[in-house]
């Protein structure tokens, strides 16, 4: 338990002292929202409530996905500068390190997401209290899933050169396939099939359910799928931290 606390504390302290990262993580969601919302929103309405309602959960998904995976990528920097070694040689279980990294990544991703939540009333989106609670719950689940994805991936890499490749070849497709920007139920079949294996699709759908009141997937299915992803990815991350002769 103390090990887990240490891992999370370390990362949060580092975010706190890294003012550039902290401030940019506060500004980034605004950028997403205004570019996507006003650019695309001017030309279309959807679900009767306007595109902004529709796009809002998608922007939350985008922000959570990129922030949490970016936070996880810092593991690679730590490995490169040798700092990770000092952490890995401490008497902390590999599971605690993996889970701690996942939790801290999720918390870091929730910083910009909270900015988006605070903006809700300004955007003219009125949510009932149960819907708001539902949305926050979905965000937490999404943040942990994406963070687990990031940690399980980043723990494998020894060089930062993979970042742009990962971002372009994995994250962007995952985001575009997810239906964050368009309704999945009206998408072509091949796209819908691909979305079935995309955790971002379930996460965005769950958040959208809270905002718009209807979903593509049954909410319980989404929760189960995301929970499954979290378990498997945490297990994978633990394995990566334990394996490898040189740690």
């Amino acid at each position, binding site marked *: 338990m103390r*090990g887990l606390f240490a891992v999370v504390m370390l990362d949060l302290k580092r975010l706190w002292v890294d003012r550039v990262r902290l401030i940019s993580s506060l500004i980034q969601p605004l950028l997403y929202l205004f570019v996507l919302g006003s650019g695309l929103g001017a030309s279309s309405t959807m679900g009767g409530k306007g595109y902004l309602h529709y796009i809002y959960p998608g922007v939350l998904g985008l922000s959570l996905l990129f922030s949490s995976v970016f936070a996880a990528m810092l593991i690679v920097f730590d490995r490169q500068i040798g*700092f990770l070694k*000092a952490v890995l*040689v401490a*008497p902390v279980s590999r599971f605690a390190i993996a889970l701690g990294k996942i939790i801290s990544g999720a918390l870091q991703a929730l910083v910009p997401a909270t900015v988006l939540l605070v903006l809700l009333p300004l955007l003219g989106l009125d949510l009932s209290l149960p819907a708001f609670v539902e949305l926050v719950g979905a965000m937490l689940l999404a943040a942990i899933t994406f963070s687990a994805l990031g940690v399980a991936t980043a723990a494998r890499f020894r060089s930062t050169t993979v970042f742009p490749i990962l971002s372009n070849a994995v994250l962007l497709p995952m985001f575009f396939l997810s239906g964050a920007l368009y309704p999945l139920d009206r998408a072509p079949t091949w796209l819908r099939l691909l979305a079935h294996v995309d955790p971002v699709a379930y996460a965005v759908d769950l958040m959208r359910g809270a905002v718009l009141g209807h979903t593509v997937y049954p909410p319980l299915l989404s929760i189960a799928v995301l929970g499954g992803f979290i378990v498997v990815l945490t297990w994978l991350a633990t394995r990566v931290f334990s394996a490898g002769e*040189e740690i």
Partner: protein
Amino acid sequence: MTDAATSPALETRGLHKRYGAVHALRGIDLTVQRGEMFALLGPNGAGKTTLFSILATLLRPSEGEARVLGFDAVRERVQVRQRMGIVFQEPALEGKLSVRDNLYLMGLFYGLSSRAAKARSIELLRTLGLEEVADREAQKLSGGQKRRVELARALVATPELLFLDEATLGLDVDARRQFWGEVRRYVGAGGTVFLTTHYMDEAEPADRIALIDHGQIIAMGSPQELKNRVGGGVLLLATEDDAQAAVWLREHGHNPEVSERGVLLVEPEPATVLPALLASLPVRTRRAEVHEPSLEDVFLKLTGRALEGGPAKPAPRAAGGRP
């Protein structure tokens, strides 16, 4: 728990390590007693870091057994890690965090409560003379200060055993002296130190030294014992043609080694033979030197090669020395 308290600090038997085709360690048998300061001395690529990493639970041996403080370095690595501290060759501080926070967080990693970690950090800052820089970002410290913080970090959980891997590489003389002074203090208080180095002056203050070359320990003993193995005094001749001088010396019953410094001879009474040699050598001698054997001479004598590979230059990481 039974023999853990009385067992040697370090014990290896038939330790081998292979990286693919590279045979980095070829059967290491080693025992380090508690309270000892033990140095592993050898050139880059000799297997120092590999042996170090196995003992520090960072690497699995291909063959053989390593026990640290009575625990198996592979199967009981958690028990080992709870009782050891380590200073790596590469810096391992979070540069953006303050010195105090670096120590505090490491305390948490070693299972201290938040309060205990804070108290221990303050204590270490004081004993290591780091109070003035306690709230400075770690990246803004001088090289010597950074190393002292790393030492403090390694000591945060009050370890029984301290591992130091080329710990003062690249430091100036003053910073080095200060660092080793602190290490000595730790040994004086009953701690055990296992260090690697390829500088003989860093190995010199150790209680015992193991010379390692090509993955094997070629000599082990106190610095004085090792020097005695040279068997006499050292005579160093810098001539106009060292190779020719060596040939002549060999023909006349001597056993010279040629190094970058000149031709090296070990004689029971070097000062006695010097005048005759100077008179009869076929090449002109520019400089002649008689001295007590150094660890450098020991290494040269045993391997025919120089330890540091020429004049003190920053050591590049040896290719194949570790993966």
